[in-house]
């Protein structure tokens, strides 16, 4: 089957759900999210059919796309992340009902689980694009859906503030991206990543400065997307204000797509001799600053969502360490595996956060006090995801870090690995802060937290994934080689 058919199917699922929303009973909107998850699941199954790239002629088309292992892996990754987030939304309905004034009961609920599906189509598209124009268009499809989602709780000031910030900074980074693409196109005459190296090699020396300017602008835009220092400043505020499922989605799917584009760009540009060294220095610099900032700024946080925001910056740092080691053949499997583990542990922690904050009325870490007594299941799930985020053996997070550090050592980045050790120690501190709250502190109230069957299933699946990936990582790595 053709590539892009998957993306079209995802859009179709979204449109059908919008239609269905008009016809189903308004009192039970959970139905829509289950249907959405089912539709995306069907697309996920389709993605295992053999695929051919659309329009293989390298010079021809804007619709140029690939079906290489990297894109196939991350398309499935984004689909799975979306399915989980869509399944999380029913637990979020009480909050939605509180902050969205609806004339009729149940109004405006279904869209909350449908919009991620459109964002998903955009991100999938972005992952397999190898042309700047397509990257840009698909990025816009995803971010416009996300603009709406971030500001979805329209009577909640924090959500509005987050939405405004996200909109302004997102638009700014889009501006950087377009402007950078224009410069690159102006110098080389192509927007195609595959044709870019040859075009650059043919350039005269005098064209190098404008080209570098263009590349730098594109890097700035991508750093916004993956939340690398110094373009990370939107993350804590937006993460804190956005509805929790959206925060989860931002920190997993959107970041992954950004990284794939970054990898493609660096792989293309590394074929140009005079750029290699400059790019490496740039990426190492980004890695160092992101690792230091993300980990050390996370230490004093007292709000769980902000903590997870900083933690997502920190993990971007480890992933960048993998990007800095792209000259090793194992780097892409390492990054892919890291993301697979990151998906399970991050979404699991956001799921628990969602339930706890709804029940305890806030996102502060103190709301987790004594969670082990109120709900051993939720506390256990959070313990597992915190252990994995910190990098304890037999969890996905450990194997991911091991592989990243391994490829970094192999490519000779000893300094980065040394820094990684220090930041991992910082990570122990702030992740264990949550464990301490859950197990050491006394709860302020002792009523158990109700957990629905869907949530139990999600916890079981993600928890099993964290342990399974930590014990038997081979299949995921094989998928990327």
């Amino acid at each position, binding site marked *: 089957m053709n590539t892009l058919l998957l993306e079209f199917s995802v859009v179709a699922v979204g449109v059908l759900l919008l239609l269905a929303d008009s016809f189903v009973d308004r009192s039970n909107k959970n139905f829509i999210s289950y249907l959405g998850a089912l539709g995306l699941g069907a697309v996920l199954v389709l993605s295992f059919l053999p695929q051919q790239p659309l329009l293989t002629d390298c010079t021809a088309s804007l619709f140029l796309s690939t079906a290489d292992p990297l894109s196939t892996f991350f398309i499935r990754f984004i689909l799975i992340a979306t399915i989980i987030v869509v399944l999380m939304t029913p637990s979020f309905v009480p909050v939605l009902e509180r902050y969205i004034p609806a004339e009729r009961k149940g109004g405006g609920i279904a869209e909350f689980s449908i919009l991620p599906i459109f964002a998903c189509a955009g991100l999938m598209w972005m992952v397999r694009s190898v042309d700047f124009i397509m990257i840009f268009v698909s990025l816009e499809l995803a971010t416009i859906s996300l603009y709406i989602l971030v500001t979805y709780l329209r009577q909640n000031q924090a959500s509005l503030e987050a939405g405004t910030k996200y909109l302004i900074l997102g638009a700014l980074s889009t501006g950087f991206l377009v402007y950078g693409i224009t410069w690159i196109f102006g110098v080389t005459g192509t927007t195609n990543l595959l044709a870019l190296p040859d075009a650059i090699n043919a350039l005269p020396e005098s064209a190098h400065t404008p080209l570098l300017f263009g590349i730098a602008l594109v890097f700035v835009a991508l750093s916004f997307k993956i939340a690398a220092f110094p373009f990370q400043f939107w993350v804590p505020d937006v993460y804190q204000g956005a509805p929790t499922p959206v925060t989860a989605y931002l920190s997993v799917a959107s970041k992954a797509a950004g990284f794939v584009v970054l990898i493609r760009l660096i792989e293309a540009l590394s074929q140009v001799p005079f750029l290699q060294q400059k790019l490496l220095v740039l990426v190492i610099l980004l890695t160092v600053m992101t690792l230091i900032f993300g980990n050390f700024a996370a230490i004093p946080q007292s709000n769980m969502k902000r903590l997870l925001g900083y933690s997502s910056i920190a993990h971007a740092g480890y992933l960048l360490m993998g990007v800095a080691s792209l000259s090793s053949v194992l780097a892409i499997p390492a990054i892919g595996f890291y993301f697979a583990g990151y998906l399970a542990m991050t979404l699991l922690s956001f799921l628990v956060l969602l339930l706890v904050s709804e029940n305890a009325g806030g996102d502060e870490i103190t709301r987790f006090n004594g969670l082990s007594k109120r709900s051993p299941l939720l506390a256990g799930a959070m*313990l597992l995801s915190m252990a994995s985020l910190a990098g304890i053996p037999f969890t996905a997070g*450990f194997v991911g870090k091991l592989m990243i550090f391994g490829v970094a*050592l192999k490519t000779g980045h000893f300094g980065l690995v040394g820094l990684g050790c220090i930041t991992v*120690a910082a990570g*122990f*501190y702030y992740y264990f802060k949550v464990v*301490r709250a859950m197990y*050491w502190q006394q709860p302020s109230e002792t009523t158990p937290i109700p957990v629905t069957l869907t949530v139990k299933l999600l916890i079981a699946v993600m928890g099993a994934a964290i342990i399974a990936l930590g014990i038997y990582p081979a299949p995921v*790595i094989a998928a990327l080689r």
Partner: protein
Amino acid sequence: MSPLLLLILLPLIASLFIAAGANARRTALGAALINLLAAIVLFFRYDLHKGGWQFVSQWHVLPKLGVNLILGADGLSLTMLLLAALVTFSALLVAPKIEKQEGLYYISLLFISAGVIGAFASIDVLFLYGFHELALIPTFLLIGIWGSGDRQAAAWKATIYLGTASFVLLIGLVALYLSMPPDARSFDLRQMHDLAANTNWSPARWIYILLIVGFGTLVSLFPFHSWAAPAYASAPAPAAMLHAGVLKKFGLYGLIRIALQFFPKEITEAVNPFLIILLIGNIGYIGYVTVAQKRLDWTVGYSSVMHMGYIFLGLAAFNVLGVNGAALLMFAHGLSVAAAFALCGEIRQRTGTLDYCELGGLAKSVPVLGLLFGFVTMASVGLPGFANFAGEILVFFGAALSFYAHGDLIMLIAIVIGVWGVVISAIYMLRAYRNIFWGPIAARWESLTDIAPTARYSVILLLIPLMIAGFYPQFILKMVGTVLH
């Protein structure tokens, strides 16, 4: 099914049952008892003539990277497994009635046990490392929830220290792996051994230093020791027993297995003098720190830091006598410190304090407890008849041999301070014994109940092998001797 896998899985399965609602204490004790019997059987089933790794079984995890779960045991690992099983059972037996979250308490203890057993039974270095880490979170919970004193600060400190050390260690192990020739890379100890014996594989010096610091911190090598005493003082008795008795030996085990085996002589000879300076810090400096303590739990905690110095001395001597002595001392110290922490817990439970100023004359009200503590004191001091003595004497002989062979002045200083250290430990242990059990008894301690049968058997269970190995050190030495020659 490999017997070693069963040994690892049993505590984990038991914790699943406890999580599902089974009676925590009985399930945990049952699993630990089966493990103890299995460990004893394996210990005696080991074929000494054949030597080498036995009971080997293997599962592929990341074949392309050379990562496989390979379980197997030789004389040294079986000795450590026996120690682990003994201390686990004894620690669970001595555990008092738990008021809050009993299930979690036993699950944490079982996880620590599974972790150390896994570490000692792994031939694959990555799993050896990974299993050890399994104990990190349970320790954090045990100290933080059920500890005493300034427990939260102690738990934080220990967790951050150990977590960081583990990552230093991990980097060292990965670097060691990458230093091998590309087509021969493996985490399999046996293949690493062949590689070191048959090729001119020589890992760099900084890797050796990373391993020494990484493993050393886990064993509370001076000056990376400051996590140990507060953590042990605050931990509930069973957790301190398992941690100080068994888990801490993992670092030494790793040093023997990895750091001592694969590095060329030039590197070890260049670095070891610095190691000797650090271990002098353990014996001399920490020895006096121990003397200055005013409470029993802190005394025992610091003494366990101090005694690590002797084991390091054996390793630094780097000859058969020294390393065999160190291995015997690991076994002996594991048992004696576990017994000491068990009795600490018993006393604290009765009096609510371990302060020397408040206690005194307890032997009148709790004579059996006093007698057992006397045994532990003598073992800890290194009186002949206990395995500690045999281990220490071998370590000294080994160190002296090394001194005669190389003529290092620093080694001579270490030996002198080491012998003086025996006197220091006699001072603080005998003083503790006198302050707590002798002298006039305060009225409020007169009606204390003596040690309960379960706790009594638990300590006796630790003392028996200690004395067997004391009178007949070959019991252990012939096992560890198969590894180190």
